[in-house]
């Protein structure tokens, strides 16, 4: 009985092979008739002695969107049966950041287009019940997962492609629906949105300073444009730009500052805008223990107060303040961003600030600059840094610096 079955199977296989062989020849002929004549094979470089790793196929400068699309197009045109498409897609996903297309929706749609259409749609309830074509579905989920990871929102074409490939009730479709449910919910959750492109350093500095100043009344001032400046004492040219910000409140705060106490130029502090890190400097003072006594109006009588401050709509328990001590910190007078954070540049900023704040001419200015912003900590100045501090009268700090 078993031998009979074997015989039958072998016969079947033989027939199939024959059919396959005939079909193969037939297919090539058809292909040649339809398509343009196949291009010649690439020159045989690998003769057994030389093996090129596939990482080296594309040079670093060739790794762009065009060559990425070229490879996918080559695959799609070469194999009509799309054999090995899962492997191709997974490899492509891995290489997407290298080619700089990891945030390109068009490329993701093209990758989903590699799947053969309508083959993986379940046709009956058993197929639907079990994981129909699991490897392909997982591969499509991986594509969607990478889209999600890079924050790429799918569009209608993605949905159409998934519908065509896997059908309505498939796992990739579920994943697509989840993304489309949650992404729009959190799209505007961030109150501090960062624009996509900020290439101009002045615009970037203005944007950052307005963000951290958190005051609509504050005004940004461009102290130096990043133009190429020929400086007489420097050998080369410097592309410095100094953009500062100060609000009217800060101006009045600085005007009330005790001229015997020094003000500090503190920095660099880091600010992250998505994946770029910029640095800013703060003009501030150390916290003072002496509080200014606010003079009470001499005309005011305790028995007949001029104003009556009663919160009548408040209940006894309606105390919305938190029972915490205020963090003692010195006032912030101004902030700036420069392309180079040395004392000379910051001195020019202080000199520019003198126009609006004449008190800076009398107040000593300390530079408390840490060498590496990576190790930025709000520690009290250590002994080492104290030696680096430069104290001088603000009337001629810049000239003094320039002589050095």
């Amino acid at each position, binding site marked *: 009985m078993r031998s009979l079955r074997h015989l039958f199977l072998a016969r079947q296989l033989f027939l199939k092979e024959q059919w396959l062989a005939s079909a193969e020849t037939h297919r090539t002929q058809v292909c040649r008739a339809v398509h343009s004549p196949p291009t010649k094979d690439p020159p045989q470089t690998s003769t057994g002695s030389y093996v090129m790793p596939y990482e080296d196929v594309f040079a670093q400068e060739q790794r762009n969107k065009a060559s990425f699309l070229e490879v996918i197009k080559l695959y799609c045109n070469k194999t009509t049966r799309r054999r090995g498409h899962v492997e191709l897609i997974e490899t492509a996903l891995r290489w997407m950041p290298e080619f700089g297309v990891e945030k390109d929706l068009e490329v993701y749609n093209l990758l989903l287009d590699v799947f053969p259409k309508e083959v993986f749609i379940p046709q009956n309830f058993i197929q639907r019940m079990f994981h129909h074509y699991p490897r392909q579905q997982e591969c499509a989920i991986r594509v969607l997962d990478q889209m999600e*990871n890079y924050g790429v929102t799918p569009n209608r074409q993605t949905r159409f492609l998934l519908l065509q490939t896997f059908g309505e009730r498939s796992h990739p479709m579920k994943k697509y629906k989840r993304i489309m449910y*949650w992404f729009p919910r959190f799209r505007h959750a*961030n109150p501090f949105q960062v624009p996509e492109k900020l290439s101009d350093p002045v615009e970037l500095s203005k944007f950052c300073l307005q963000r*951290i100043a*958190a005051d609509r009344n504050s005004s940004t001032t461009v102290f130096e444009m990043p133009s190429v400046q020929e400086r007489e004492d420097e050998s080369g040219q410097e592309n410095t730009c100094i953009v500062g910000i100060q609000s009217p409140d800060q101006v009045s705060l600085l005007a009330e500052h005790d001229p015997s106490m020094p003000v500090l130029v503190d920095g660099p502090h880091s600010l992250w805008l998505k*994946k770029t890190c910029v640095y800013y400097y703060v003009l501030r003072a150390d916290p003072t223990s002496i509080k200014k006594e606010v003079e009470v109006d001499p005309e005011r009588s305790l028995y007949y107060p001029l104003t009556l401050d009663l919160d009548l709509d408040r209940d006894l328990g309606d105390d919305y303040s938190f029972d*915490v001590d205020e963090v003692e910190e010195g006032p912030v007078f101004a902030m700036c961003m420069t392309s180079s954070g040395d004392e000379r540049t910051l001195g020019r900023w202080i000199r520019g600030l003198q126009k609006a704040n004449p008190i800076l001419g009398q107040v000593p200015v300390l530079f408390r600059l840490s060498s590496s912003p990576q190790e930025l900590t709000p*520690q009290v100045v250590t002994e080492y840094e104290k030696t680096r501090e430069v104290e001088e009268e603000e009337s001629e700090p810049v000239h003094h610096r320039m002589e050095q």
Partner: protein
Amino acid sequence: MALSLTILQMNMYRTSPWTNVIGLKLLATSFHSQARLYNNDYRRPGLPPENKPPWEYFNFNIGKGVQNLKDHFGLLKKEIVDHLKGPGGKPLKVAILEQTSVLWEFRNPEDLKKWTVSSDFEIGGKSTAYLKLGKNNQTAFLYGALNTKAPQDGETNYSGYCTMRSRPPMGAFGRKSYYDWSNFNSLHLRVRGDGRPWMINLRADPYFTNQKDDLYNYFLYTRGGPYWQDVKIPFSKFFLSSRGRIQDNQHPLWLDKITALGMTLGDKADGPFQLEIDFIGLCKDQAHTEEFAYEKYK
């Protein structure tokens, strides 16, 4: 963006109850160093097997045992006194009338011991995170560097997170204890970040063991700059996730059995980060009436 919590709290709250009760690993690590939050039977590739006999997991030091006993009786005393005083150790009148409550503030090194700092270091990553008191000993300063390079162990695809988590409250003699925040509807934080987005994770005590990885998350966007930032996050905004994946069946967070609060950074940007925290508190926002911000489909 938001949905990709993939690595954020993948390994955050998976401390087994065993280590919690005997408090071996948690007590052994100092507050500013990298602690392991990830303890289970699974052994990651590349790590040697831990062939220890069971008795080596216990510390038979008598002095430590006596100290432990003292601590537990102290806890018991505190529990009894608090119970006599009123709900949560406050007089009833105060507890009913209070509109705000400060949960954590950072004024001395003892306050830092209520927190655990961890990073992807424990899954083989290269991020670092440290916690210390800030300037003037008035704030907590969480700093370090994020590194998204995934460990090459053949199974990890993503890496790069740094996290800080409060230690779960413990009752006397290893009993569980919870925070009851049901009087309040918003979380209030005063922080000063560097512009990076963080994630607030809340863990409620699970009823079934398969919910032990459930976390309730929302985002904490920092402004950056030299000024303090007051952030108020209503509890209705917190969404349910498990093992870093947002769940389909969402429900509002039940506030009567909160065990831990955590903050996670995982914004995929390599580089140093810092976050200064003044305090973390609760407030009752009468203007906020929303029960749940997402559809429940029930």
